[in-house]
């Protein structure tokens, strides 16, 4: 009877491994307006966000600069206390039981390092070994695996401050995984990486998620990270969740329009045609959006007849454009 109940609550908590209910974070910012005088104002970094992530899912968490992504992740690790709402990770309230949760989560902040600058990489791992009280065999096994897959072998004896950005990032990802975290928060883990390193890191994360069903929340400005890793994506803007669904859904939203890029002979005012609207002008180049269902031919013919056309191309909506349009719409509405 009891076990049955346990199993039930277990599976419920698995379905809502991460759960946010109207979570808010308000920063009180003071601006100096003069000698000894300052003005206070509020920044709503996270504004009533709710979502759940089941165990084992890999979710993309994207949005423009200052949207509130890092703030959300900080609350999920417990280092920031929400100003409002309810937040649970593995049933734990992060800010209340930060240390207990710490053993079950892994974090990579791409812009910071968990490694110790003045120590060889391997020494940082040894400290992690003690800090997370990882059983020796487990530690060896995880370290060997990370060293192999992230190609850290030649770097182990190098002091961290001498590592390149990409090397350090791989080192950081390994550091976050030595203690077998159930959930991994990645805040821009591919920032500054070259193409080859990115591919390596992505492959590694995909395997990790597949083999160990580690839950992953991934923040990035590189949408190909999301395209290759996440089926589900959440878009946040100005602290609000503006989209939560499959990546393909995002395509559909944006599939409404295609873009015609035209090069004119010289700089001209925005082209005036009723079949399309100009979305951007850059010198003699202009971008026009038109319904995806329409043929481009009549539009091109009209422009060619009325304007000194030099060159043109038609662009299908890509996810990047879709998202920047979503951001733009949000900003103007």
């Amino acid at each position, binding site marked *: 009877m009891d076990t049955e109940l346990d199993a039930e609550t277990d599976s419920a908590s698995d379905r809502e491994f991460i759960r946010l209910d109207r979570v808010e974070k308000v*920063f009180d910012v003071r601006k100096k307006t003069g000698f000894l005088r300052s003005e206070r104002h509020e920044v709503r970094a996270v504004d009533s966000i709710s979502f759940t992530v089941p165990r084992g899912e890999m979710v993309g968490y994207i949005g423009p600069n200052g949207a509130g992504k*890092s703030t959300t992740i*900080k609350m999920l*690790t*417990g*280092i*920031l*206390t929400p100003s409002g709402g309810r937040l649970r990770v593995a049933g734990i309230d992060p800010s209340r039981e*930060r*240390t*207990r949760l*710490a*053993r079950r*989560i892994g*974090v990579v*902040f791409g*812009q*910071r*390092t*968990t490694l*110790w600058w*003045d*120590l060889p990489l391997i*020494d940082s791992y*040894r*400290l992690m070994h*003690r*800090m*997370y*009280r990882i059983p020796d065999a487990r530690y060896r096994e995880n370290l060997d695996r990370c060293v192999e897959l992230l190609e850290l072998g030649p770097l182990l004896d190098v002091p961290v401050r001498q590592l390149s950005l990409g090397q350090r990032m791989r080192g950081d990802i390994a550091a976050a995984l030595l203690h077998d975290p159930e959930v991994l928060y990645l*805040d821009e883990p591919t920032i500054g990486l070259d193409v080859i390193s990115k591919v390596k890191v992505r492959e590694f994360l995909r395997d990790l998620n597949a083999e160990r069903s580690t839950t992953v929340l991934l923040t990035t400005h590189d949408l190909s990270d999301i395209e290759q890793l996440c089926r589900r994506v959440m878009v946040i803007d100005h602290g609000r969740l503006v989209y939560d669904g499959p990546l393909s859904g995002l395509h559909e939203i944006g599939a409404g329009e295609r873009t015609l890029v035209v090069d004119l002979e010289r700089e001209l005012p925005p082209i005036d045609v009723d079949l399309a609207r100009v979305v951007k002008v850059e010198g003699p180049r202009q971008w026009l959006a038109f319904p995806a269902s329409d043929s481009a031919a009549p539009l091109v013919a009209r422009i060619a007849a009325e304007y000194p056309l030099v060159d043109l191309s038609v662009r299908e909506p890509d996810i990047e454009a879709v998202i920047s349009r979503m951001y733009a719409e949000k900003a103007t509405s």
Partner: protein
Amino acid sequence: MGTGRLYAAVAVRAFRRYATYRVATAAGVFTNTVFGLILAYTYIALWDEKPHLGGYDQAQALTYVWLAQGLHAAVAAMGGGFEDELIERIRTGDIAIDLYRPADLQAWWLATDVGRAAFQLVGRGVVPMAFGALVFELALPADPATWLAFLVAVALGVAVSFAIRYIVAMMTFWFLDGAGVQQLATLVGIFFSGMLLPLNIFPGALGELGRVLPWSALIQAPADVLLGERTGSGLLSTYAFQAAWAVGLLAVGRLVQLAATRRVVVQGG
């Protein structure tokens, strides 16, 4: 048990790290020795004028000079050490990383500071002390038990010093530009630790005050133990005095940390 090993590893790492700063150590030793000479001749003039000032004879006074020069780095009487690093981490927001680790922030930095102090006691202490003993007639104890008692007092002094600097560093959470608080603390520390002049020689209320403030646990207290001024119950009450400040200030530091991390505003993305 497992945590003990972690903090031991952290302390060893800090010790090794300070051991690599050879130039800084040499420069520090040089400065302390020169400064010791200047102070020694000043003290000689003072004690010629007023023998038994503060209850010390001249040999004891000179011992005090060299002891203070050898010891002040270890007990960080002028601030610094882990404090600068912690302040920098709070200012840049890297503190976020320390906070999500399953390690105790205060214990972690205490371990770091113990490692540093252990190195600086040897690296910065032995040479000035030996130099002083060669050039001047000092009143050093021959009894190893007194030296041992002295080391205990030094360890307690390091704990008090750490506790004070930890509170100072935590202030950065509120005053992002913590330089003011830190400078004030440094000034107070230089004076009230007895680093320049033994607190014994200050008459009246100032002397009384100096002797009950926590900073006297840094240099004055270990010096009195080494000079044989504290034995038996006197020694125990010196230890009790130091330990009380250490425990009290560590507890205050903990509360301040709690308050800071509650309303923590971690800087940057």
